């Protein structure tokens, strides 16, 4: 922290401001991001367009769509994931299905873009090189934010154009584009603030992503639990729904996003002028002069490096499990239509509905746990490319022992996350339903059956690290993206089984409520093991970079 009052005015030539040089930096950022941003824009626009296209073909008549919509609005599990249906037009269903998901995608795009051009550059020392030229103190921040906001706005226009081209009403198309773009803007600005607070890019991304997670959770509860719908209004992702594209657009909601974006941008700008280059807001405390007794093996080092992020993930999973678990109690009380009663009875009554809710929630948490596994495995790759592995491997530590440290944490961490989520969901739901013991064991089991599928995704990434290291990061996250897409959209878009079977999560027993079969779990774990072997063999044989 620095004393603000005593800082001399930085020397800048006549007419210069804190923003001098922003335009050049924007060009630099756009040049560096030209591939990755195009991929983001294409993937998000395509998912919106394909959703609209499928709804038009799967539910061509208004009657079919109305029936579909009624079913949704009584199903808390779907409400929690996607939000309510406001209109059963093709546009309305498209907006319901895609608005929140695309908003999360746009938010991630914004977060990654802003952090890449601010804190990540600062941490790598590149900003120092730039900062020594005639460049204002806020220029890098402004450039990163400008590129991210620009990308979000282009995304909004693409989405609007794609929807309009598919024959949806123009104003609704524009509103859907705006809803997605504005969510991206809000979280870009949140990332701009987190980049000032945190001292490392990793921490900055974690802070912004936690805010995003909390926003998703708020609206999930607000949309699914009765009497809590005001929570949706507290979430920037909720605003994407409440803008109501294709359902009598409420344009004033966009004002909320614009205001929050502007406020966060101003806060970030002020923080940027008040801190030292390279420093976070939290001062660096000195560390121990000696390593503790247990820090003496590659595994201990991996644990030391990953324990902080695992702990943060654990807290996230525990909170999510508890919130969604306690929200389950309200499910079913919303059901009023006779049609839906029929559906409910078919599903096995209210208990069946609640089971379906937990199947959906825990399946989603399984995919998110797989994301943790992917990140933990990719630590191997970043340790290698940032030359830190070299220091360890120049000691009598073999490559397999070095890799094993990180792999054990990835595998055990993934399992622990799901266990924590199942446990906290069971405790929360059991407390409210009055049967803690059986709910805990039921939901713990339902959470743990996801583990082999999550392992398989992480093991695939390990195989990439071992065999095609240059592609490991992009293809690895891409594979997770495909799995996420299939989990979220597969069933409703009625893909063929061949497509759905690509995702390991398709094969997980549908617990609670479904029948437990051990064989898919065994072969999922077997494939994961084989991929691990393949990856390790590759890692042993190849050159390290």
């Amino acid at each position, binding site marked *: 922290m620095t004393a603000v009052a005593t800082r001399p005015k930085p020397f800048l030539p006549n007419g210069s401001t804190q923003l001098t040089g922003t335009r050049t930096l924007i060009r630099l950022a756009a040049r560096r991001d030209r591939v990755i941003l195009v991929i983001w824009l294409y993937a998000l626009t395509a998912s919106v367009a394909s959703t609209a296209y499928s709804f038009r073909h799967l539910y061509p008549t208004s009657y079919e769509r109305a029936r579909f919509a009624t079913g949704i609005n009584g199903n808390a599990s779907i409400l929690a994931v996607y939000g309510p249906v406001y209109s059963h037009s093709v546009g309305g269903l498209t907006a319901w299905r895609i608005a929140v998901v695309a908003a999360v995608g746009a938010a991630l795009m914004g977060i990654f873009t802003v952090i890449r051009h601010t804190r990540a550059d600062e941490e790598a020392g590149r900003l120092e090189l730039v900062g020594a030229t005639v460049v204002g103190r806020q220029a890098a921040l402004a450039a990163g934010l400008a590129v991210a906001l620009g990308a979000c706005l282009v995304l909004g226009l693409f989405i609007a154009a794609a929807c309009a081209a598919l024959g949806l009403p123009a104003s609704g198309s524009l509103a859907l584009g705006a809803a997605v773009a504005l969510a991206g803007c809000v979280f870009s600005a949140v990332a701009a603030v987190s980049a000032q607070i945190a001292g490392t890019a990793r921490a900055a991304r974690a802070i912004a992503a936690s805010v995003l997670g909390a926003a998703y959770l708020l609206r999930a509860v607000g949309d699914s639990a009765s009497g809590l719908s005001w929570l949706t209004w507290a979430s920037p992702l909720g605003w994407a729904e409440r803008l109501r594209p294709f359902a009598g657009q409420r344009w004033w909601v966009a004002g909320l996003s614009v205001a929050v974006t502007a406020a966060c941008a101003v806060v970030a700008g002020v923080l940027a002028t008040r801190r030292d280059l390279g420093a976070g807001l939290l001062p*660096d405390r000195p*560390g121990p002069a000696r*390593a*503790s007794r247990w*820090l003496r093996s590659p595994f201990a*080092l991996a644990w030391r490096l990953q324990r902080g992020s695992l702990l943060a993930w654990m807290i996230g999973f525990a909170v999510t499990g508890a919130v969604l678990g306690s929200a389950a109690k309200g499910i079913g009380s919303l059901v009023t239509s006779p049609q839906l009663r029929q559906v409910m009875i078919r599903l096995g009554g209210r208990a069946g509905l609640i089971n379906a809710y937990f199947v959906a929630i825990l399946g989603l948490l399984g995919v998110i746990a797989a994301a943790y596994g992917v990140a933990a495995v990719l630590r191997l790759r970043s340790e290698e490319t940032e030359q830190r592995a070299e*220091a360890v491997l*120049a000691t009598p530590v073999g490559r397999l022992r070095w890799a094993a440290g990180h792999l054990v944490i990835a595998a055990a961490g993934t399992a622990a996350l799901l266990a924590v989520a199942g446990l906290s969901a069971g405790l929360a739901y059991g407390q409210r339903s009055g049967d803690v013991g059986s709910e805990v064991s039921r939901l713990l089991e339902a959470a743990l059956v996801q583990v082999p599928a999550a392992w398989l995704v992480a093991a695939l990434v390990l195989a990439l690290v071992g065999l095609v290291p240059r592609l490991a990061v992009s293809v690895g996250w891409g594979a997770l993206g495909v799995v996420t897409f299939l989990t979220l959209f597969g069933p409703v878009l009625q893909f063929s089984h061949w497509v759905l079977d690509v995702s390991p999560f398709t094969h997980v027993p549908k617990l609670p409520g479904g029948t437990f079969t051990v064989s898919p779990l065994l072969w999922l774990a077997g494939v994961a093991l084989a991929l691990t072997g393949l990856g390790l063999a590759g890692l042993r044989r190849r050159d*390290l970079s």
Partner: protein
Amino acid sequence: MCCVTVAIEVTGLRKSFGRTCALDGLDLSVASGEVHGFLGPNGSGKTTTIRVLLGLIRADAGTARLLGGDPWHEATTLHRRLAYVPGDVTLWPNLSGGEVIDLLGRLRGGLDEKRRAVLLERFELDPTKKSRAYSKGNRQKVALVAALASGAELLILDEPTSGLDPLMEAAFRDSVEEDRRNGRTVLLSSHILSEVEALCDRVTIIRAGRAVDTGDLASLRHLTRTAIDAELARPPEGLDRLPGVHDLDVVGTRVRCQVDGAALEEVLRRFIEAGVRSLVCQPPTLEQVFLQHYTDGDRPPGGAAGTASAVPE
């Protein structure tokens, strides 16, 4: 056959990355107990050689023996006996320097506690700082302390002083000197001629992935000529007849020449006789040496194979 006397034996090593050829038949031989300079400009293949020796990458062709073993297949066992300092030290940002030193020491199988304390003091390194707060030089010191305090019989140092200030460079030289007295072998890669001159018993010069010269320092003395530019009171006498004076250029009272170390005294005596108005002396930079002696296709006689060319041209 070689374990006692030869620490590193590399012959005909080749390695390419895609289309770029990093090593093109490199030979390198380091005897046990010697401090061996591994000298070459940036991008000449020094780091690639070291990475092959550490078993991090596999050579395309040629043989490499390290402490009598195969650096690729026996990496783990061989690493018990060596310590390594990379040229560009990156550390785990949230570990303190002290933690990194202890960790690397323990992974190597032990740390000389007394030497650790002495080195921390000598390098004026604060071990409680987090690694992300260290400057390049301080990160390098962390790696140096970890390596020098390890008691390993072979030290592989890749441009270890590139981030150190002159005082710390002196501290580094003292430490390597102590290690030499303790019978350790050191492979010191560098592109700084004076550093290699000050520390090394023998030198291998590498250019474009090939050893162009190797031998002891005396035999490479021609690399250490001093460039002199002097303004004298009267024209000098007899300089052109002195051995060890090269590229002499006398214009009136202005004298420019290259002088071998052994001839310096005599040249200066002649200067003083003539009266000195101004005098500029410069050691040749490595770039000049390379320009003069090792431009493409112009390898010195007897160069690569291990016998040094004592006399240039």
